[in-house]
């Protein structure tokens, strides 16, 4: 049993976020304890990726109210790279291509940036290659992808696998996975889920954004939250996912007094 268990890792309190004068998140409250897996579901455009981006530190999102505490520190005061070095990892819904930069070179730079921060010696090319090969085998990523430019020309599924590989290499404390399951075939979904499950442990937490019950079948969450119009309208345990699968979001929206049409964009 970990000393961390049931200790809060991330505490979001009354978080309001605006983009270009448009309010997208409207008073989010969410606590993620060490070792927990939280799933966030909700209609298109409801603010799921916005939340993920704000947690990772993307510029252009204005926090107009509320606070976020991570490991007891004010998360919003930290630049993105510091958050990463402190263990926050965002797997992107749409991973970016970086032409001309070898994936392996990129991965090594990232791993060493994080290791340096953690007071560990930087890995040389040989040691890194050994490490990355081990993780690739675990995550079922083809070795050939190491020598291609970062995400350039990767298929949708390959990009997602590459994100998971990065997660495995960086060993985050809080992994935020934004639709890691979208665009994956059945086998890939299972591989990715296996990869995530292998990393689960009492000192690591996950926030998974997804539209599908199927992912939650492979990676069983401790909590599920439904986000609509920038608000959490329902939280529950994994049984909520089954209910959503059967009934959709309409009934929840109605209960919350929201218009079921185009639930993302007021």
């Amino acid at each position, binding site marked *: 049993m970990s000393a961390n268990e049931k200790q809060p890792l991330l505490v979001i309190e009354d978080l309001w976020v605006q983009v270009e004068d448009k309010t997208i998140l409207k008073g989010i409250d969410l606590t993620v304890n060490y070792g927990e897996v939280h799933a966030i579901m909700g209609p298109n455009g409801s603010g799921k990726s916005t939340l993920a981006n704000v947690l990772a530190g*993307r*510029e252009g999102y204005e926090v107009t109210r509320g606070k976020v505490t991570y490991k007891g520190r004010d998360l919003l005061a930290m630049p993105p*790279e510091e958050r990463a*070095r402190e263990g926050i990892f965002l797997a992107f819904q749409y991973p*970016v291509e970086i032409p001309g930069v070898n994936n392996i070179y990129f991965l090594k730079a*990232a791993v060493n940036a*994080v290791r340096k921060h953690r007071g560990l010696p930087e890995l040389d090319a040989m040691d890194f290659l050994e490490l990355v090969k081990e993780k690739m085998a675990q995550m079922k990523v083809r070795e050939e992808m190491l020598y291609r430019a970062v995400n350039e020309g990767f298929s949708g599924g390959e990009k997602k696998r590459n994100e998971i590989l990065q997660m495995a290499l960086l060993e985050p404390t809080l992994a935020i996975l934004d639709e890691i399951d979208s665009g994956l075939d059945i086998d890939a979904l299972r591989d990715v889920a296996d990869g995530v499950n292998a990393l689960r442990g009492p000192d690591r937490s996950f926030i998974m954004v997804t539209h599908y019950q199927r992912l939650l079948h492979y990676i069983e969450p401790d909590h599920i939250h439904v986000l609509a119009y920038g608000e959490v309208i329902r939280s529950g345990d994994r049984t909520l996912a089954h209910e959503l699968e059967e009934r959709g979001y309409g009934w929840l929206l109605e209960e919350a007094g929201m218009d079921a049409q185009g639930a993302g964009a007021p």
Partner: protein
Amino acid sequence: MSSAEDPLDRLVKSEYKAGFVTDIEEESLPPGLDEDVIRFISAKKGEPDWLLEWRLAAFREWQKMTEPHWAHVHYPPIDYQAISYWAAPKRPEDRPQSLDEVDPELLETFEKLGIPLHERAALAGVAVDAVFDSVSVATTFKEKLAEHGIIFCPLSEAVREHPELVRKYLGKVVPPTDNFFAALNSAVFSEGSFVYIPKGVRCPMELSTYFRINAASTGQFERTLIIADEDSYVSYLEGCTAPMRDENQLHAAVVELIAERGAHIKYSTVQNWYPGDAEGRGGIYNFVTKRGLCQGEHSKISWTQVETGSVITWKYPSCILRGDHSVGEFYSVAISNLRQQADTGTKMIHIGKHTSSTIISKGISAGHGSNAYRGLVKVMDGAEGARNFTQCDSLLMGDTCSAHTFPYIEVRNPSAQVEHEATTSKISEDQLFYCRTRGLDPEEAVSLIVNGFCKEVINELPMEFAVEAQKLLGVSLEGAVG
């Protein structure tokens, strides 16, 4: 992260690491240019009469010429009478006989720049000619190269020791009256390197020259001549730095390359002259004429340049493809940050049959920099089956910089194939953010993205220098992102 400031907007001055001044006793001419100055330089070098006459003829032509202003660069008029045309470290009349006789202060200067002149400490496999202001201070590995019949020495020495070669080739590729700056150089050139690779010899090491402008108010006018005889190969690299000074300094060099049948010359430049400060004070005016002649069949000349310094760059390393099946290549990275302005590119003149050329140009603009690619592809009547491929990419960082492309294509032979591709992109916030979420700080992220953008060019540099160049790219853009 509550600040919504655009990370690409912020620009602070990047630090120029080679900007120190060496405190050394120098002998220099007062500013001004007339025939006496030219006679003085020629006498200092102990030159034969024919060369003095050659200089004087160039000078007389230069006086009739006007400075060209077609390039996309803007700078106040240059007062050619306010420049000193000669500066040299004081030392005995004769060149030092060995490295031990070289002024320790000078050796230290080059050490500081990362250029060890002691052969035992030198980079394995690189021979160096070090030029400090108007003179060469040391050339390494000369004896070893001589075993292969290779000549690698300061041009002034070549004039004395190998007059027949110098006389045969000097000004053959870039005639003294080619253009305003070339004419000025022909009149007052001070130092430079001379290379001759005999028939069938593959030069066993990289040759390189390092140019350092030290003295104030001095111009640097070096002249390099490289001759690769039939079926030979040489890879040559030049590097340049200068102290940080508030006034502008003029650098007007000429480089001539001649590749005979089957010869291959690979010429690489890492140019890091002082770029001036964020307000545009100081910096080197870099007006350079570089041209190679592919004289024989199946000869090849490859130019690779990484241009990170200078406040003004006006430079078009070119190839005249005379021999049938000859090949010309131009790979370029040019950075304009701060108030730097670069107008650079190449000319590929296809004369021989089945000649081919490749142009890969990567321009990076940041700060208030302006970057122009200017390239001419000319296919003459007789150039059956000539081919050219040009790719010209611009990368913009921020909103206050600019990129321009001026491609000129003249095709007089219908069998020619000429392809031109151009792209302009911005370092995207998405790319930066992605790197930062993986723990890289903004500087590392930019350096990584820029190096990726330039990869095809960096890959052309000799291994020993590619790493240096990559670091330099990062340093030159330091502060370009907040």
